[in-house]
């Protein structure tokens, strides 16, 4: 089986699209939580092929986008400390903090390395024993287990110059916060695929149970999304609210137990600051006490200076699903992928970037 082209087959898509058109009667609003889904939806023009009864809104599922400016400033401040190497996933480089971006400080001489995996950061630490390597722990439940593994490996190997700035975020708590705010009325949720690969589908059950909102976990190919929308429509039309999986090749209800155990061994939940959403209890991860000597925030004197938010940027509202990039005065004018003002224009999974690059609604 081909895992990509099989899930882009036009004749199957056509069948699903006509089925959705036939079945969808009630006007609904579905949110895709995950930035990866937003990209698929725009890249393949999925909004254009859905019936007018279905309104799609993007959620906060882009780890770069939800990273608060204060945390970006911390990462940049770390890069200014002598003998510190900051290792980060590539997506983070371009995001503007209050005054600068990692890309800019790198050009000015800061030692910033782009890595493709956490283990590369660990290797940089091994290769540079006289320096301190700080890995920027950004991401959801998807990346946290690998970062936990790197910390355990650093411990086993006795690597003492490896640190993590843990800015991890957890998805279910922030969804609860968004639903509790009542700002956006949803009739269905496209649950994140990669996150669910780790945590399973059980953690979404409170949404179906407590809020009566149908939930379907989706993969990232156009047929995955269409199938997911079709399943959501079926639940709506039958007056049901359950958690279903439309991504069986990647997700089991119980998730990846081994990854979860790693994560729980190294991290514990803590309150976290989300851009546009604010502080959400138990939605972040910090290092447990026995691993605190790997915590960059405790190991270094970080002075990020005062935080500024870009004037006019509505990334926060967009992340909550309250507004769309089209509502932003800066969009496509002052804020473009080449000259981004807010993070949603920078990240490859950001809503603004997807709207801009793929011409949302064209």
């Amino acid at each position, binding site marked *: 089986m*081909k*895992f*990509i*082209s099989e899930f*882009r*087959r*036009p004749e199957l*898509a*056509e069948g699903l*699209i006509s089925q959705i058109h036939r079945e969808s009667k009630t006007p609904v609003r579905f949110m895709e939580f995950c930035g*990866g889904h937003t990209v698929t939806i*725009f*890249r*393949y*023009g*999925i*909004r*254009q*092929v859905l019936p007018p009864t279905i309104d799609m809104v993007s959620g906060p599922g882009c*780890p*770069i986008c939800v990273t608060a400016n204060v945390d970006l400033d911390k990462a940049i401040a770390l890069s200014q400390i002598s003998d510190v190497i900051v290792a980060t*996933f*590539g*997506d*983070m*480089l*371009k995001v503007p903090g209050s005054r600068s971006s990692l890309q800019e400080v790198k050009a000015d001489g800061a030692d910033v390395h*782009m*890595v*493709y*995996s956490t283990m*590369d950061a660990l*290797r940089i630490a091994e290769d540079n024993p006289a320096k301190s390597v700080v890995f920027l722990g*950004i*991401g*959801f439940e*998807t*990346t946290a287990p690998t970062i936990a593994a790197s910390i355990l490996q650093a411990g086993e190997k006795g690597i003492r110059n490896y640190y993590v700035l843990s800015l991890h975020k957890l998805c279910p708590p922030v969804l609860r916060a968004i639903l509790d705010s009542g700002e956006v009325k949803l009739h269905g949720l496209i649950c994140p695929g*990669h*996150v669910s690969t780790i945590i399973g589908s059980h953690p979404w059950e409170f949404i179906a149970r407590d809020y009566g909102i149908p939930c379907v976990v989706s993969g*990232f190919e*156009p047929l995955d999304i*269409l199938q997911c929308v079709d399943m959501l429509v079926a639940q709506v039309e039958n007056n049901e609210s359950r958690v279903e999986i439309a991504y069986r090749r990647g997700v089991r209800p119980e998730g990846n137990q081994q990854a979860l155990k790693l994560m729980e061994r190294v991290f514990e939940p803590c309150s976290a600051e989300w851009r546009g959403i604010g502080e959400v209890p138990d939605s972040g991860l910090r290092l447990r006490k026995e691993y605190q000597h790997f915590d960059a925030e405790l190991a270094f004197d970080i002075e990020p200076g005062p935080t500024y938010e870009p004037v006019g940027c509505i990334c926060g509202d967009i992340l909550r699903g309250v507004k769309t990039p089209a509502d932003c005065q800066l969009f496509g004018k002052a804020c*473009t*992928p*080449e000259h981004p003002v807010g993070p949603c224009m920078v*990240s*490859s*999974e950001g809503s603004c970037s997807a709207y*801009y*690059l*793929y*011409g949302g609604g*064209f």
Partner: protein
Amino acid sequence: MKDKILLAHGSGGKLAHELVERSFVKAFDNPLLAKLDDSAVFDFSGRLAFTTDSYVVSPIFFPGGDIGKLAVCGTVNDLAMSGAKPLYLSLSFIIEEGLPQSELSEIVVSVQKAAQEAGVEIVTGDTKVVHRGSADKLFVNTAGVGMISEGVDISGGNARPGDKVLLSGTIGDHGIAVLSQREGLSFSTQLESDCAPLWSLVAEMLSASPNIHCLRDPTRGGLATSLNELAKQSKVSIRIEEEKIPVREEVLAACEMLGFDPLYVANEGKLVAIVPDEDVDKILKAMRENRDGKDAVIIGEVRAEHPGRVVMKTCLGASRIVDMLAGDLLPRIC
């Protein structure tokens, strides 16, 4: 240390002469270079195309090629995209001290092979050696001149509504092959760079019909960027169909893993041609008969509305804009 390039190799002194005569003059054996004068001197009449490019690829060896082959193909292809038959190239090396001589020799051999394949001669060159850290192993610059036959007028500004858009084969092979070898990322793939000199393909296309309007090799920035350049230069829109664009399954998989779109991934042996509708069949036939165009396809057409825009019909039948690449391709987090 005997087998390493030293600063002295670029000093202009004895070691430098030794390197030039033993390695370069011998490999690129031709009378214009062998004179070792300050300039290569040759006769010329007709329309001349002149281009230059620098190569800083990392790693310098990758599946399907190396920086030497790339430097020859890149410049040969830039000439070919103007419809010019490549004649002479210059070749400059900027070498980081400590580069193993064996690696330099290997690259020189591959320059020689690529030049032979493309039918060009390396007639002038230069070597500099810089301190460690001032370059990344080896940088190469090539410039080239080529001759344009009468009746050939190829330019990015020549696309007309109604023209067809041709693509010579699969996209993204080079970018993904190089990335698969990059330090810190290495993943295993059978994929090889498509790096190839394209003059023989272009020559056969031109003999099928000299009325080719535009040619472009979609290198950095990929197919999407080349099409955008052509649409803007010609003040037309280009409409392509996703289903028609050939992409290898390995490239698709790597792109999914890294969060890339194959439309933006570099190619080094592919071309896009915009040709009049009435000539498309014979040009396509000529392309398919050439080794470097055997998978050639029509991917779309030129339209008058929305000048400067590239629009793609997706596999779901929807339309979306295909923009230029902004900044660098950066791998995503999850």
